[in-house]
Each structure stands twice: as structure tokens, then as C-alpha cells.
């Protein structure tokens, strides 16, 4: 394990950015999101939760798929994919890292999503351990250890140092590139932080929720009357899905440019009333149905298809960001509560 002085972090970013495009939490207009590093970037590795998750790095909110160039009555199809060059995503929290796993099981199975695959393979992930979880966190519920995330490199921010541990060959390579800024360390400070954080984790208000209540009979869950009440304040906005690190639905759209058509995909939200709308109409016409779909998918359908893996990682972003404070925790608690209700 090595450590790098916090005062040298700018040099570290620059060093990495020399070789790779670097994506990490940066502050723009008061909010911290993943962004591409440049010398003006206000990097905020200290911030626990970026508003959007880092899933953009592999599954961008909008992404061109193909272009049709139109010249008079001639149409030419242009592949817009560029050769994948390695890039670095830094500061990924344990929950968000786990979310990549959830996405992989969607995009990297047959039919293979080559757009995702290319980026996933080219991406080098530097994770960041959590030093100060907040009340919305509940990753431990899903067996995630926020104090020791995986990834190509794991980092800890402790007492003015960034502790750095390479986990993979890719990680080792990166370590070499930055070694001039680093000093060797035994990592005891990291262990100490881990212990402190673990104490806090036990105190988290949502640490004891039980998603297992969703292992029950699928149809019973589906027809449960509670959904109506749970969803009644839902605005049908896409906030929860867009801040969620595991939501993976997208729509394919076209944009007419001045010389042709761009076909692109962009995130979609199952909360939207035009989600998967077809000529025959909307399969889930009511907001209750759409609301139910999201949670049933996260807690029932996905796990059933993926060996019990929930497609929620407990990042708590929806808990924090839902305009009307509806969220997965309330849903799980509602189903785990009084059965007579």
C-alpha cells in the first residue's frame, strides 16, 4: 500500500490525466457529479455521494449509436463507435462499484451490448472507501463493505493522505505511473478508519431493513394493496431512476441533424408515463403500476434472474433525492411490517 499527501492530489490527477482521460467527482455550480478532469476542475473526493452515480462512465445518459448521413436521396450508414482507449474513473464508492456488477449482468450477457462492453473493458476503476457514511446509506444490507471496496485500485482518505492499494494488473500499472508522488505505508491508519466507520455503520437507521421480505410469492407481492398507498404521492418523475446506480433502462431515439440523422440511446425511466409506450398504448397505465414495477424489478424480478442478487446497492440516493420522499427503504419497511395492514 502507498499513500499520497492530500496536497499532492492535484499532481496526482494531472499525472493520471496525462495518460488517460480521468473522470472523478467534481463540483459544478455547487453540486458534485462525475466529470472529466481538467486543470480548472474543482475535485471533491471528500464528498460521500455524487448526485448522479458513476454509471455514466460506462452507460452514458445519452450515447450516439449510429449515424445516417443523408445527401439528396442517398443515405449512408456511419458507425460512430470509436476505438476504445483506456480511461480512469476515480472515487467510486463501494455501493456504486457493486452497481457495475448489476449492470454487467444486463449488458454483458447475450445479446451483448458492445457499446457498454467496450467502455467497461477500457475503464480503470479507482474506488474510494467511505470514511463518513450518512443516514441515507444502507449498503451493508446488501452485504457491501463500504470500508474496503474493490476495483482496480482502492483508495482511502485518512488524515491528510490518500491511501492507495492496487488490486489488479491494471491497477498496478496505474500505481507505477503515480509512484513518484507516493510513499510506502503499512496501512494501519486505514484499518483504524475502517473500524471507526464500522461502528457508525451499525448505527445507521436503515441498516436493519430486510429485503428478504421480497422473497415471498411474487404474485402475492404484485397484488398487494400496499402499493397504492405507497405510490400515491409519486410525481412520476425520473429522479430516483436517474440518480440510481443500477437503473439500466434506456430508450432509442433519433435526432435530425443538418446532414442526416443521429440514432442515439438515452436513459429512460420506468416512472415515466410514456415508458415502453407502444402503438397499443402504455403497458402500465397507472402510476401505481409504474411505481410497483420499479421496486418489483429491483427486489424481485432481477434477483430471480440473477441468483438472488438485488439490483439495489443501498447507496441511498433515492432516499435523499426523491422530491416527495418515497423510496426503496419505505417500500421494504412497509412490506416487512405489519402483515394485517
Amino acid at each position, binding site marked *: 500500500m502507498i499513500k499520497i499527501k492530500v496536497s499532492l492530489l492535484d499532481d496526482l490527477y494531472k499525472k493520471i490525466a496525462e495518460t488517460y482521460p480521468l473522470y472523478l467527482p467534481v463540483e459544478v455550480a455547487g453540486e458534485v457529479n462525475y466529470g472529466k478532469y481538467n486543470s480548472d476542475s474543482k475535485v471533491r473526493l471528500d464528498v460521500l455521494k455524487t448526485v448522479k452515480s458513476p454509471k455514466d462512465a460506462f452507460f452514458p445518459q445519452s450515447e450516439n449509436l449510429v449515424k445516417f448521413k443523408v445527401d439528396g436521396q442517398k443515405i449512408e450508414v456511419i458507425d460512430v463507435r470509436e476505438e476504445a482507449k483506456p480511461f480512469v474513473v476515480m472515487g467510486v464508492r463501494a455501493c456504486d462499484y457493486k452497481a457495475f456488477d448489476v449492470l454487467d449482468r444486463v449488458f454483458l450477457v447475450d445479446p451483448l451490448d458492445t457499446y457498454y462492453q467496450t467502455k467497461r473493458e477500457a475503464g480503470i476503476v479507482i474506488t474510494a472507501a467511505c470514511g463518513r457514511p450518512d443516514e441515507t446509506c444502507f449498503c451493508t444490507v446488501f452485504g457491501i463493505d463500504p470500508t474496503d471496496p474493490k476495483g482496480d485500485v482502492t483508495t482511502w482518505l485518512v488524515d491528510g493522505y490518500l491511501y492507495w492499494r492496487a488490486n489488479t494488473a491494471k491497477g498496478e500499472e496505474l500505481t507505477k505511473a503515480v509512484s513518484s508522488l507516493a510513499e510506502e505505508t503499512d496501512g494501519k491508519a486505514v484499518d483504524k478508519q475502517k473500524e471507526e466507520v464500522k461502528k457508525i455503520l451499525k448505527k445507521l437507521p436503515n441498516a436493519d431493513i430486510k429485503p428478504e421480505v421480497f422473497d415471498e410469492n411474487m404474485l402475492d407481492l404484485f397484488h398487494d394493496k400496499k402499493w397504492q398507498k405507497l405510490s400515491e*404521492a409519486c*410525481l412520476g418523475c*425520473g429522479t430516483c431512476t436517474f440518480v440510481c446506480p443500477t437503473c439500466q433502462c434506456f430508450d432509442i431515439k433519433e435526432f435530425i441533424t443538418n446532414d442526416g440523422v443521429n440514432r442515439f440511446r438515452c436513459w429512460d425511466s420506468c416512472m415515466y408515463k410514456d415508458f415502453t409506450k407502444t402503438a397499443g398504448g402504455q403497458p402500465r397505465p397507472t402510476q401505481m403500476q409504474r411505481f410497483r414495477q420499479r421496486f418489483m424489478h429491483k427486489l424481485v424480478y432481477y434477483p430471480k434472474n440473477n441468483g438472488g442478487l438485488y439490483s439495489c446497492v443501498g447507496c441511498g440516493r433515492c432516499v435523499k433525492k426523491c422530491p416527495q420522499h418515497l423510496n426503496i427503504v*419505505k417500500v421494504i419497511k412497509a412490506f416487512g411490517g405489519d402483515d394485517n395492514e
Partner: protein
Amino acid sequence: MQKIEELMYKRASEMLESGEVDRVIAWKKGETCYDVSPATFTKDNLEGFVYDAFCGANLSKYLVEESKKGGKILVFLKPCDTYSFNQLLSEHRIKRENVYVIGIECQGKIDANKLQKKGIDGILSVEEKGDKLTVKTLYGDKEIAFEEALSVKCETCKSKEFAVSDETIVLNEMRDNREKRFEAVERLEKMTEEERYAFWQAELSKCIRCNACRNVCPACTCTHCVFDNDKSGIAGKANADSFEEKLFHIIRSYHVAGRCTDCGECSRVCPQNIPLHLINRKYIKDMNEFYGEYQAGAAVTALNPIVDFTKEDVEAATVVGGKK
């Protein structure tokens, strides 16, 4: 607030009991202190009924769907929400006869987000003590002035009057901050074009097009929004280009111009804390200055300035320039 809550609860249970109303729209307790949600209550179930400093949501828009369902509804509206209610009435979106409005005291709402911005994280509970808030967190107790935690929309509260109500529950004098209403807009107006461009470029670059602002907005009650309509030419699910960030917000604000009551919900719900109210408020300020003071929702019958005109209206060139 405690007292107000008790009185509200009392009225709600009385009216449900007597059959005067069939449903009550109010706020419901969440899992922690700040995650209250709008909810409907019925005679058998008033559990979780709450009214505290976190009950910021404007309930008026729920009435659009709710008043269609038949039966009589009791709704609790804060002064600012009553304007939205009135505006919806003028647009024939709510059946007035199905709704009983109780105007309730509001001393400004607080925003958990604000606490976090002030470095108070890991919030477990918040207690009001005079003009101070005591916050219990995972990392110890913190104290902060109520004012500092005030929700953005309450910082510039426009009114303590109820535009409409069937009865009110008010115990203490309410206050408003209307004199500050246009300060932020004025600051932006004083900037150079370049500065304003940079400001909005940065703010709007955060927009994730979650549509929370639109979906919460009591003026946005279109059956089918232009931004969801592929035929409109401006439909889009994502801001695929920075142009679309501006397009969405400019057109959305234009569509609610003259109908926006400045309830501030758009800014409250924005996950990226974009000061969206400053866009709507610019229209309000311009309309006030160009065409005379107008408050949407103040009266059901008033003609919205954007569908009205006078022969002596100012020219665009006079107010915007436009010529070198």
C-alpha cells in the same frame, strides 16, 4: 407547529367522522424526521398525520386527479399553495365543489438539503427550539439557526395571505419575505451577458432531465407535455446537447409564464439544486415591470398577462434592446 398540527388533526378527524369530507390530503410522517410525504387519509386511517417544518410540499396539484374521483376532499394549504390552487381553478383543473380548503399557518419550511450543505450530515433527528434547530446526527449533536435551514422557496416567501380558503388555522402572525423576492433576479440582471451565460451554462449543465420540476409544478398539468410528444419537434428524454438543457428550461418556463404562482416547488425538488425558480421569477418580474403587477392565482378571474395585451405595450426593442 405542534399546536397547529393538533388543530389540523382535530378538524380532519371531525370532518371525516361527520362525513363532511371523504378524504383528507395532508402530509404523512416518514422513516426519519425530514422525509414526510404527501398522503391521503381516510376515516379509518389517520395514522402518521403530521404537520411540521419539513412539510414543504405543495399539495394543490394532487387535487387535479383527486377531485376527479368524486367525494369531498379536505386539503390543507399553506398561504403560497393557495395561489396554486386558485390558478388551477381558473384553468378548470380542479372541481372546486369537491374540495374543502383549510388554510394553515406556515412559518417557513426547512430543508434537510440545506443542513447538509452547511456540513450537517448523518441527520437522525431535528428539533425546533425557538429560532434554533438542534440536529442529532451520527456524528454528534449540532445546532443551527432556523433561518439558515430555511428552504430556498421560503427565503423569498411572497405572501402570508390565503388567496382562497374555506377556513383557516392560524395561531401566530405569519411573516413573509416578499421584499427579497426579486433580489437574486436583479443580481443576475446586473451581470454582463457573458457572466449570465456562464452562470446558466454551469447551472443547467447539471440538469439530468428527471422532469421532477415539471412533474411537481402545479402549472404543468398538461395531459400530454410537449417534451414527451414526438410530434412537437422538441421532445427529448435526455439533454443530449447543452442546447437542450436551455431549450427545456426556457420553454417550460415560457409555458408556465403568467400561470406560475412562484410556489418554488421546482427548486425544492431539483436533485441538482438548480435555482429554477429564478427562471420563472424572471418572467414574473418582467411581466410586473412591463405590464403592471400581476400575481398568478391571486384571483380566479384575472387575465394572465401573457394572453392579455394593451395597445400601448412596450416594444421588445425597448425592454431588451435588440438593436445596437
